[in-house]
């Protein structure tokens, strides 16, 4: 039974803050973020890597937190949806999701926004194909993806205009 597993110490860096934790070897990054750190912005839609809702950035790369063991995240920089808006100031991607109707029920939104953030960092001028490649692992049941596509392209355009 789970409660008898031996725990290991883990130093986890999330959104620039260091958390010292004792975790069991089978605990996922998602469980640690949500259940231990209270960072519930990262969502669990399936728990088996099929929906993309739990996407966070690990050293800048989007990963599925439900499939990542927490202990494997030692010495890595994790960024979650809670870390984007610094001092309450939304990022351009967040703004564009609002302005272009990329959000409905919002459950897929944190994963979509994190993956889009990584995309625009890597490729500031993505085309539709680039957006599809970045977001095809993310399920959204509300929007039909049209306004999500529009949101990401708008964010890229606005960022390049602002220089």
């Amino acid at each position, binding site marked *: 039974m789970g409660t008898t597993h031996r725990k290991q110490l883990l130093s986890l860096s999330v959104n620039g803050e260091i958390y010292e934790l004792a975790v069991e070897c089978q605990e996922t990054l998602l469980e640690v973020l949500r259940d231990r750190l209270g960072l519930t912005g990262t969502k669990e*839609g*399936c728990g088996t890597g099929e929906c993309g809702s739990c996407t966070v950035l690990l050293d800048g790369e989007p990963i599925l937190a439900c499939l990542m063991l927490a202990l494997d995240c030692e010495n890595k920089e994790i960024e979650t949806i809670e870390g984007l808006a610094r001092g309450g100031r939304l990022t351009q991607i967040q703004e564009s999701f609002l302005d272009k109707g990329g*959000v409905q029920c919002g459950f897929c939104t944190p994963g979509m926004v994190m993956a889009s953030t990584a995309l625009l960092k890597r490729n500031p001028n993505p085309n539709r194909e680039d957006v599809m490649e970045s977001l095809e692992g993310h399920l959204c049941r*509300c929007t039909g*993806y049209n306004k999500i596509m529009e949101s990401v392209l708008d964010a890229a355009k606005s960022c390049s205009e602002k220089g």
Partner: protein
Amino acid sequence: MGELDYVGKRIPRKDGPDKVTGRAVYTVDLQLKNMLVGRILRSPHAHARIVHIDTERALQVPGVKAIITGQDTLGIKHGFVETPRYPADQYVLAMDTVRFVGEEVAAVAATNLYAADEALRLIEVTYEPLPAVFDPEAAMLPGAPEIHSTHPKVKENLVNIGGKTTSQWGDVEAGFEEADHVREDRFESHLRTHGYLEPQVTVASYEQDGKLNVWTSSQGPFLKRAKLAKTLGLPFSSVRVQKAYVGGAFGGKIDLFSHEFCAAALSMKTARPVKITTTREEIFSAYRHGQPLIVTLRTGVKKDGTLVAQQIKTINNAGAYRSSGVVVIFLAWGFAMIPYRIPNLKYEGYSVYTNNSPRTPQRGHGAPQIRFAVESQLDMIAEDLGLDPIDIRMKNARNSGETLPNGDNVHNCGLKDCIRAIVEHTQFKTKFGRQPSGKEGRYRKGIGIGVSSYFGGSLIYPNSSSVSVKMNDDGSATLLTGALDIGQGAETIHSQIVAEELKIPMEEIQVVAADTETTPVDIGSWISGNAYVCGNATRVAAMDVRQQLFELAARELEANIEDLEVKDKAVYVKGSPSESLSYRELVALSILKRRGDPVIGNGHWRTMRDTPTHPSLATTKGRWSENYAFDAQTAEVEVDTETGKVRLLKAVTAHDCGFPINPMLVEGQIDGQVSMALGHAFMEEVMMERGRTLNPNWLDYRMPTIRSIAESEHLDVITEQYRIGEPYRTKEVGEGYVSAILAAIANAIYDAVGVRLFETPFTPEKILRGLGKIK
């Protein structure tokens, strides 16, 4: 009066900032102090008698705090429909019989998930398996295993009939006599699921004072409260269902679910909060999916395409309990009778019990199934008679002001305008037909059309919406509404209405929503009436506030009320900008002169206010709605004749939603429905074998991704208007657009390659079989 500043504008969602920052709290995110985790033991059998349940060993597991079985409940049944004719037929936990794989048998609360799962393994249930039946047509036949007795009012030699809908008008036999051409076809639809991203989840906390607090991922708190109170034997005053954000629902979270009852009962038993979160596998395997229909459609027409008679028989595979099975056979009738004039009609719908999981509404609730049949057959009839598919639709489409056979009026009906607009926009007539261009070679293109209509609100509990608008000292406002925003934007559009009526900026309107204790009752986010019913209640509440502000200002400014107007959070005398009082001043004045009254407005709305109740599900008699939306949709597809794969290249929706309160939200609804229909047409199917789900995950149940995005265009056909201070009749946009597009896709495939499909989904196998490339 006045120009619109808020209604009709593309205003970003009120809840948007919370949602893009991860701050929005969904039920699945709730963590209460000292909370236990609950899990549910489910039947492995499709049909079995429960001989014995032994929970002793399970209770010994460290961390396990309570286990309940059916014997620990009050044995009160519940049902999606609870009427004298269709009484509740399902227990919250099985008592002596299980009737589907996944039926809830026991529930455990423990300090952690591992202990709860271990306890589930150790509960010993002795079953005596019974014969089971899964196919509805087999289940109807005498001699089939009986799941429940046939409904006593259905006096036919059939078994397992949970309910029947019959309706007729005119003389259908005489109609067929009169017809120049008659076709009979059979259409079948398949099992799909809702695919909401947030799982089914409930947190229940029974407090020391006897209050049960509940948060649950749902489509409206008031129905949940009623059903929880009933099954738990508690007064409404002891049950409080509160708002949390909802991660999608699409019809799948309306009714009471066993996990909601179990979380509550376990919390009452342990005096600790209990949370039950379902796994995705549980949702696929044991929860309620949509409702496939078998439709037999016989239609008679004159040579010129005029419809003269239609005979429709539907069979619904209802699953193990009645649930909404008797609703979908009523609705299938309704969605068949709205768009076209049919002078003589006979309808029979059967809802049949089988040993599958019970079914539930799914966006469109019967409309995709019936419109697929009607619109496909209409194209076939047009071809048989050498008529154009557009002409035959225009000939039979209803006009404004027509009365439907049930006595409802379609009022301003934009159906013909929708057809005209879409034909022009898509250049349908130049693309349709077997012309050589694009029709040769491996990839062939086609275009197809379908039309549909959807009702906007009916009389089902809680029937109506009430709203309060409170003014604050600084002139800002607080909106109290029972409406639950499930992603459609309820809080945003109702705020827009308050903003418009009172000319208060959106950001100065706070929303308190969906709490059975602190907000007034609401019709719910499932009967397609939220924008109309709750919206009008909101408008009336805001008008009440405005009237009170006018009365205060008229006295103070010595002006007539008719000469006053509102703008910029102030009341002005028209034409003399210097004579004004700000809302802040007026609220202070009200408190001073009206014994502390801070200005609170109330509004109520009920659709069909002179109609006592909903129409008869059995006879269709009685009014259904005062509000019908219409649409025409086209699909342009490309068929790969080598692989049989079809791509939806472009979907166009011409729609009469009255007027859009928020065009951006309306477009979002349409795009989402087009995408859902795309999944329906090509990708999604819950595969079941003897009641067991074979593909209980999103890898094997494929939903559309951004890769399958369809170009989706929208054409507004505006038939109504919003005028400040007057009732409005906007129409529904939340589920009417999943239907015609499905038929349009089928018709486009036929246009492309001449393969007529009678069953969904439109798989490559069916296309290749139609092309004669495989057997």
